[in-house]
């Protein structure tokens, strides 16, 4: 009996009665090989397929009725980006990029994902329609944090060793200007014509006016701020303070830090729910995610996730939260309605996904 190593031309995975072409047939003599195989009835003859978890998931996953964004996960130890289809919670592509990728920023409108290759000192540009690298911007320095403006035309890069924010044309990589930030700038967040920068070693957030091209406010926060998140109505900015095990809440109208929320051990990043009511924070040494009620400004739940959780993103269309697990080389998926982990998706070594890595249609 023939078995199949590689299935091709199998466009309709959801219907097992459509024939798939076997491009790598083999004869498996052993019982264990047969036991590992799965029988599909086809129009012509049965084909035995090598069993994979992917295949099972494809068979059982419902066709998503709404747009479900891809998530772009940087794997710092694998020099690659894992692309996750958030409708099926599967890796659909693994893209080789530069050395030591960490930061990521995605534009749904322009179909681009940008990844900072810290060790290559560059940014890789990915066409999200084809999931291919189409360009690499050589930058020098130590590019880590990335952000895009609302229409995806301008890319902001935090160089955490030169304490500068470099601003480049997102299409060509042409430098537009650079602004001194504080010490060791990390998280970036664009809000209209303002850029917020978390300065890890200054223990502050600076507000840069992008028209005046200068810092217009400096806001003291907790110790070692790293990740940033903002409510959908732009009224509040959340700053994750790594050494203080806390989140600072900033009123964006007054540019004042109004309160501090206790979270878990050595928190790094945060993501806001689509309705702004919940903030999710990764605790890298607690292996948990803290769930914050943004009206109460308090942690209301703690979810066990993968080892050393870092980057976190909220998929608006499916209300799932994706957490890069640096320790597990995987992504934990949380159902936001239940506050429970529903899947762990293997990605690549030392997944980080620092930044806005989900191509939500409503940015």
């Amino acid at each position, binding site marked *: 009996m023939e078995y199949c190593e590689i299935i091709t031309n199998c466009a309709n995975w959801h219907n097992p009665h459509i024939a798939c072409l076997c491009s790598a047939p083999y004869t498996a003599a052993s019982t264990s090989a047969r036991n590992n195989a799965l029988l599909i009835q086809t129009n012509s003859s049965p084909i035995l397929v090598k069993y994979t978890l992917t295949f099972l998931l494809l068979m059982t996953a419902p066709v998503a009725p709404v747009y479900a964004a891809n998530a772009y996960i940087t794997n710092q130890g694998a020099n690659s980006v894992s692309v996750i289809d958030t409708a099926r919670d599967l890796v659909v592509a693994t893209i080789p990029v530069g050395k030591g990728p960490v930061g990521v920023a995605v534009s749904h409108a322009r179909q681009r994902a940008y990844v900072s290759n810290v060790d290559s000192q560059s940014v890789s540009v990915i066409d999200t329609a084809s999931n291919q690298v189409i360009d690499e911007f050589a930058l020098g320095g130590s590019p880590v944090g990335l952000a895009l403006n609302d229409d995806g035309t301008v890319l902001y890069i935090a160089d955490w*060793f*030169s304490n*500068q924010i470099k601003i480049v044309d997102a299409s*060509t990589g042409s430098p537009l200007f*650079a602004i001194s930030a504080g010490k060791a700038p990390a998280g970036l967040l664009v809000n209209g014509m303002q850029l917020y920068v978390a300065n890890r070693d200054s223990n502050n957030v600076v507000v840069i006016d992008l028209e005046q091209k200068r810092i217009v406010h400096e806001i003291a926060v907790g110790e070692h701020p790293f990740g940033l998140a903002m409510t959908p109505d732009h009224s509040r900015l959340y700053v994750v303070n790594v050494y203080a095990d806390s989140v600072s809440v900033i009123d964006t109208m007054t540019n004042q830090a109004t309160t501090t929320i206790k979270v878990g051990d050595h928190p790094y990043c945060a993501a806001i729910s689509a309705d702004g009511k919940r903030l999710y924070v990764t605790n890298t040494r607690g292996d948990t995610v803290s769930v914050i009620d943004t009206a109460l400004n308090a942690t209301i739940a703690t979810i066990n996730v993968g080892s050393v959780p870092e980057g976190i993103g909220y998929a608006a269309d499916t209300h799932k939260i994706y957490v890069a697990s640096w320790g597990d080389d995987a992504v934990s998926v949380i159902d936001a309605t239940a506050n429970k982990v529903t899947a762990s998706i293997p990605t690549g*070594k030392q997944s980080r996904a620092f930044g806005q890595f989900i191509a939500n249609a409503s940015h």
Partner: protein
Amino acid sequence: MNKLLAIIAAALLPLTAFAHGPSPQKVEKEIVIKAEPAKVWGIVKDFGGIHKWHPAIASTKVSTKDSDTFRLLTLKDGGTINERLKSSDDADMKLKYEIIEGVLPVADYNATMTVKPGPGAGESTVVWMARFYRVYKLNPPIPAGQDDESAIKAVTGVFDAGLPALKKLAEGK
């Protein structure tokens, strides 16, 4: 175009064209032990008993301060390592600790030892993972022994020596 950008970038940062901070490093090792998870966890969770199995450690001294527990390891080769217990979870069979100071060429070292049942019946898998940075946090040139390679090599040595010894102890009568 990229060459031009590189020149511009270098001109913007004349002194820091090669600036690069340290990246977090990972060492992860695992071993399968032919002993019940409860038994293996009993050995692993004994924070002050690591010298009973790790061949590099001559003695362990446990101390407490406020709500923290520390262990001072004295190495057979000389030198000490002071570690703080972060958590010990019986349900997850997970031990977390960090290095406060010591002779290992690492910085910000956090480690987790986890005992999992399986793969087979009556077996356990121990996973030992550490996240750390190299000692030297500034610009290159990096002094000898303070680079990423030295850090990784040292931690790998600790795990490679320890896990087989843990296995031997757990499998013994």
